[in-house]
């Protein structure tokens, strides 16, 4: 059943993303079949959120680590990408400085800060986009899991982590554009970001990365490692008496998950065209938890479904009834918690059998 839902999910994600890309590029704007570019990027954004949801489900659903700060890893990946995109602007910025991004010129920077070096190289930027979230997760997880911090306490410190990063990235002297973050990107890998073909390509790339992450996550959870992880989730103390070290299992999956979240952030930034400290907001991480709960915790595919459904609902509601969105989200969470413990995917699977 899980294999089936994974297969269906991969086919749907790749098929629909390719179809949208083709209909966007191959039909005229007037055609009934035409998919507008804003819709391409909107769905691309949903798929990036789905990668974040998948990453979160891996740690929450299978290791019992309820991270309330997972958007931090997503945002760090996004910032690494943003730094690359800023360096690509070059002399096309308002101040026309070949080296310094506009916000640095504005803040009277004389030289590029040392940690910005190398980000003009796309390979280096992409490496940092997975390395930085991965390393942060490694250090944070090592400290937390080794001291056997778990449950609510762990959730609270993950929330504190993202909040601390939020405050740090708000500061102008951090050198990441402060409050405004980074925007006005021009091109990526030499391709103009405003071009339809680039947008369509980013959508397909997001779909491919989402499926790749899903397959990796599925490999992990169906392996013997995954069985140990489930044992750790439910009966951590017992696994120790069998000779397992739960902390190393949690650490591995936490780092993997952070890397996935970082990948989501990399694809997110060029599609929404901006990255700012708001991505670190604690509420964002909590929203991601709701996506996973709605779709079905501990199912992987459910996390993807939940992220897409809830965000599509958000797009609709914030357009039609902006003041209702937060109430709707809260209500949805309560509803799912009370009535659908296995989420929408559980409901679908029950309907099938």
């Amino acid at each position, binding site marked *: 059943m899980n294999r089936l839902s994974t297969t269906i999910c991969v086919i749907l994600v790749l098929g629909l993303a390719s179809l949208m890309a083709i209909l966007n590029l191959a039909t005229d704007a007037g055609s009934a079949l035409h998919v507008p570019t804003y819709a391409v990027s909107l769905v691309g954004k949903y798929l990036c959120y789905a990668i974040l949801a998948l990453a979160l489900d891996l740690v929450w659903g299978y290791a019992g680590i309820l991270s309330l700060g997972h958007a931090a890893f997503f945002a760090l990946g996004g910032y690494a990408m943003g730094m690359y995109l800023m360096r690509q602007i070059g002399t096309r910025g308002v101040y026309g400085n070949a080296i310094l991004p506009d916000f640095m010129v504005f803040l009277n920077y004389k030289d590029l800060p040392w940690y910005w070096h190398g980000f003009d190289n796309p390979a280096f930027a992409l490496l940092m986009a997975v390395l930085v979230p991965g390393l942060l997760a490694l250090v944070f997880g090592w400290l937390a899991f080794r001291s056997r911090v778990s449950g609510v306490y762990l959730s609270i410190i993950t929330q504190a982590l993202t909040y601390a990063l939020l405050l740090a990235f708000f500061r102008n002297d951090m050198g990441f554009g402060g409050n405004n973050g980074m925007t006005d990107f021009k091109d990526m890998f030499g391709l103009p970001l405003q071009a339809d073909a680039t947008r369509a390509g980013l959508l397909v790339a997001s779909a491919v990365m989402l499926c790749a992450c899903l397959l990796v996550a599925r490999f*992990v959870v169906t*392996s*013997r*490692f995954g*069985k*140990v992880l*489930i*044992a750790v989730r*439910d*009966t951590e*103390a*017992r*696994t*120790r*008496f*069998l*000779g*397992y*070290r739960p902390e*190393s*299992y949690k650490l*591995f999956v936490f780092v993997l998950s952070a890397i996935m979240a970082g990948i989501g952030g990399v694809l997110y930034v060029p599609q929404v065209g901006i990255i700012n400290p708001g991505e670190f907001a604690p509420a964002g991480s909590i929203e991601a938890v709701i996506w996973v709960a709605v779709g079905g915790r501990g199912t992987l595919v459910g996390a993807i479904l939940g992220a897409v459904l809830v965000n599509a609902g958000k797009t609709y509601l914030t357009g039609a009834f902006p003041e209702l969105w937060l109430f709707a989200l809260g209500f949805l969470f309560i509803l799912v918690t009370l009535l659908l413990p296995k989420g929408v995917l559980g409901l679908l699977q029950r309907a099938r059998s």
Partner: protein
Amino acid sequence: MTIGPVSGSLLYLNGVSVSFDGFRAINNLSLVLEPGEMRAVIGPNGAGKTTMMDIITGKTRPNEGQVIFGAETDLTRLDEPAIAALGIGRKFQKPTVFEPLSVWDNVLLALAGDRRPRFSLWARETAEERDRIEEILGIIRLGELRTRQAAGLSHGQKQWLEIGMLLAQEPKLLLVDEPVAGMTDSETEQTAELLREINRTRSVVVVEHDMAFVRALGVKVTVLHEGSVLSEGSIDHVSCDPRVVEVYLGR
């Protein structure tokens, strides 16, 4: 003052004490277990039997005393996974199996072998592993239920599955906490038989309340009371000991 281990013993508790918030749960407890021995530990509720197992397996660190395993390993310096790796297995008072996993997978995870993530991530079930699991499922009579989720087992079946997991670990020493609690008479009898069978190749410490069961095991008995040894010897010897009669049997 440190006293060396009793020569040739498998497990040697030497003057062990532990307090919780000033309450002495274990009080200057000493105990020697010979290799290959099976020992029954009895005592009223709260005597410290489970706490003793917590100390041996590294869950609780004693305030005083030593716990020597084999020739010279001091268990008080090690944590739970390290002690498990030395060959000490434990069955809990309340049966704790991995509920969402199948009976088969429960035994699989317990099988002796590499416990590191980098191994388990790529591990494939080998033919030897399958044979060993089959063998254990036969011993604990859960062969028919191999694909069943452990959550769906009866209380007695969970107790047996946990004993099967202990066997799979291939420990040198098994610590078994109240294995027959909640079992029917015939299950209790089968469990006594199973433990005697296990004892042919391994040392066992079994904590139990059920006197008929302890009698059926026919092994040396240690009576704990308020965290110390009250009496030790054959079941007939301890049940005639007036101090034991007073605190435990004659309640």
